[in-house]
């Protein structure tokens, strides 16, 4: 079957699964809400952005008042079905934002993971391989432990830390205009270790806020709001579009850089773009959700087993499967009597499944 057609069918199928998982997830919680009500409330929440206006607000940075442009998007809501108010509020204000954010984060981490594994030609590569999560952790834990010293919000600090770490690793690994992948990998490991030490030290010094910091490090989506979805969703979609545009180039890069070069790929430029975009999409996900491990590692592996190594089909299917997987994992995380960080759930569900695949099928290479 032609790749385009296969991609379409797989994507449609996984989208259906994603919608089903979202609806099922929204029925689950302390208040039981039936599926029909959830579906109606969800449809009511469907918003079509119709316009953007920019308002200027002032924000305090280092004690000074700085004007900050804030985009204000106006939406059109095509559905208004009748739903009991309580149910509508719970679904729309509490559960859906969290589910949507889980989907966006899963989508981002899995597509970045697929790109990194292809880019590094290494089955152990994950989205944070060049230090993104460690950098985010430094930013976030610093904000939590020393709230007065860091003037930005936690997410901004995490995002900035993530990009600074990624850029640092890239700069360290570059010689002239070349960036050997092996050096990048090793520099990533070293920088992650260094930043890990910084995080450990800050945790020791964090006193009262230790619990909050640890909770962040384990990855969590509680208290998510639509505002976070509004920022991360467009970024994720945009970044995914760029990565998808490079799907063929990623395929050719799997053959090795010299081969890719002779096949007409601008290897170094392509590497820079892929690395930058995959790091940005990962940084965005990590800064709103904390360090959620394993999604970006196993989802692309599983999809590669199912659809093959061609990134034209692997990227969209990984992204959709990652979204569905994280929504399901987060439902487990919040469904119990006491909520656990979703990072624990992804690892607890993902690792055994991955081991099963390892034993039963060929996951020895990419």
């Amino acid at each position, binding site marked *: 079957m032609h790749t385009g057609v296969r991609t379409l069918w797989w994507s449609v199928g996984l989208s259906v699964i994603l919608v089903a998982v979202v609806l099922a997830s929204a029925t689950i919680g302390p208040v039981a809400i039936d599926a029909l009500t959830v579906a109606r409330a969800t449809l009511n929440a469907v918003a079509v952005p119709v316009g953007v206006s920019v308002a200027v607000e002032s924000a305090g940075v280092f004690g000074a008042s700085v004007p900050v442009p804030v985009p204000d998007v106006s939406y059109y809501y095509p559905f208004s079905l009748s739903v009991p108010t309580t149910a509508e509020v719970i679904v729309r204000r509490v559960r859906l934002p969290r589910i949507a954010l889980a989907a966006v984060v899963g989508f981002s981490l899995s597509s970045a993971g697929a790109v990194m594994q292809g880019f590094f030609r290494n089955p152990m590569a994950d989205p944070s391989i060049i230090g993104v999560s460690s950098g985010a952790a430094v930013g976030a834990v610093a904000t939590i432990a020393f709230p007065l010293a860091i003037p930005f919000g936690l997410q901004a600090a995490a995002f900035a830390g993530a990009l600074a770490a990624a850029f640092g690793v890239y700069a360290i690994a570059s010689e002239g205009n070349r960036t050997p992948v092996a050096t990048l990998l090793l520099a990533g490991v070293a920088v992650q270790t260094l930043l890990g030490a910084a995080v450990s030290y800050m945790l020791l010094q964090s006193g009262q806020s230790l619990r909050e910091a640890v909770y962040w490090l384990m990855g969590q989506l509680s208290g998510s709001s639509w505002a976070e979805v509004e920022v991360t969703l467009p970024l994720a979609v945009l970044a995914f579009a760029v990565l998808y545009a490079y799907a063929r180039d990623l395929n050719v890069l799997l053959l090795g850089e010299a081969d890719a070069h*002779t096949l*007409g790929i601008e290897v170094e430029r392509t590497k820079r773009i892929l690395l930058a975009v995959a790091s940005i999409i990962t940084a965005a996900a990590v800064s709103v959700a904390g360090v959620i491990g394993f999604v970006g590692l196993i989802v692309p592996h599983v999809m590669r087993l199912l659809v093959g190594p061609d990134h034209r089909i692997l990227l969209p299917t990984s992204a959709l499967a990652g979204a569905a997987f994280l929504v399901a994992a987060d439902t487990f995380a919040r469904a119990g009597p006491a909520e656990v960080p979703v990072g624990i759930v992804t690892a607890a569900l993902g690792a055994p499944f991955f081991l099963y695949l390892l034993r039963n099928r060929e996951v020895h*290479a990419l």
Partner: protein
Amino acid sequence: MIDVDGLTVARGGVTVFEDVSLTVEEGEFVALVGPNGAGKTTLLQAINGVLTPGSGIVRVDGRPIGDCSARDRGRLVATVPQDTHVGFDFSVEDIVAMGRTPYHTRFGRTDREADNRAVRRALERTDTARFADRPVDEVSGGERQRVLLARALAQDTPALLLDEPTASLDVNHQVETLSLVSDLAASGKAALAAIHDLDLAARFCDRIVLLADGRVLANGSPAAVLDATSLGAAFDADAAVTTHPTTGTPSVTALGERRDRDLTVHVVGTGRTAARVIARLHDAGATVTAGPLPEGDLAAETARARGLETVTAPAFGSLDRGVRDRVARLREEAAVLVAADPPRADGIAGLLDAHIPVVTVDGAGGPDAGAQRQTASARPETTTRVASPAHVLEAVVTVAPERELPADD
């Protein structure tokens, strides 16, 4: 078509080669030969643009490769890499289709018809169409090599570079692959291949470029380039060049790196055993003389190819006085005499009666009665028998008279 002019490449501060110039015309298949580390792969990478040369220029179809965009390069030069391992379960057809990468734009429409045609043609041309749907890592090494050749064909370039295209192939596939490249060249491509096997290079290529010591040591027809002298200089080894009995092209036998030993051995004998004894001793660096050897015998042919001092006599004939004298003179200078499966002719018996240590080597058929009878006349205390030419060196070194070593201060 491929025009390399004054190319100098340095890697890690060390000059790999300097001022290399060569051309490959349309329709020509040129072999690039030379010892390991001579820079064959580096030269290919400088031609396809993977490496930027320190100085000099490479033009393909008149266009300087260094100034081309990656996509344009991909439309001018296709390369079949040495390492054929792919490591991902792309299908054979997927891999070949990647050859069309230089014709794709990121957002614009691609000419899918032209792609499919080129891929189909490449698959058929390389006889890979019948396993086009199989994962590329499940096909054999030889098949995979052809798949990468197909990928290069799908690129539809005027120039084709191949880095050791036969290195991982069995004899049969080596010949198939090179015939195919030869056909492709004949159909108008300029093909340049780094080839290890000098015989194959001589057989299939129109011209051979010998790269050694950082420069082009020889460049010309196989017969002109493949002579023992230039090969010796290039490879630091002795080589024997003969005409291949079947293909009629030059055939090279590398004799290994010579380590001159201060040891002269005279060999008398016939056939395969004597030939192997001569080869083994000569390879080990001994000065070898031989005779009498029957004319046209394998042993005589071996000694001649190596340029050894040899006395030959007509087979089945008796030895005339001149022959006997020349043999006696050679034998005088030798430290050890080796009788390798010597003929039964009684006339030879006296030749073995030497006053130097004798090593006898049994023929392929085991201890030979004739040889036993003849060597009996040699002084038994200085006669050593070995069962095969493989052990001759050890025996010769053991029985060779100790030379006086210069005294150390």
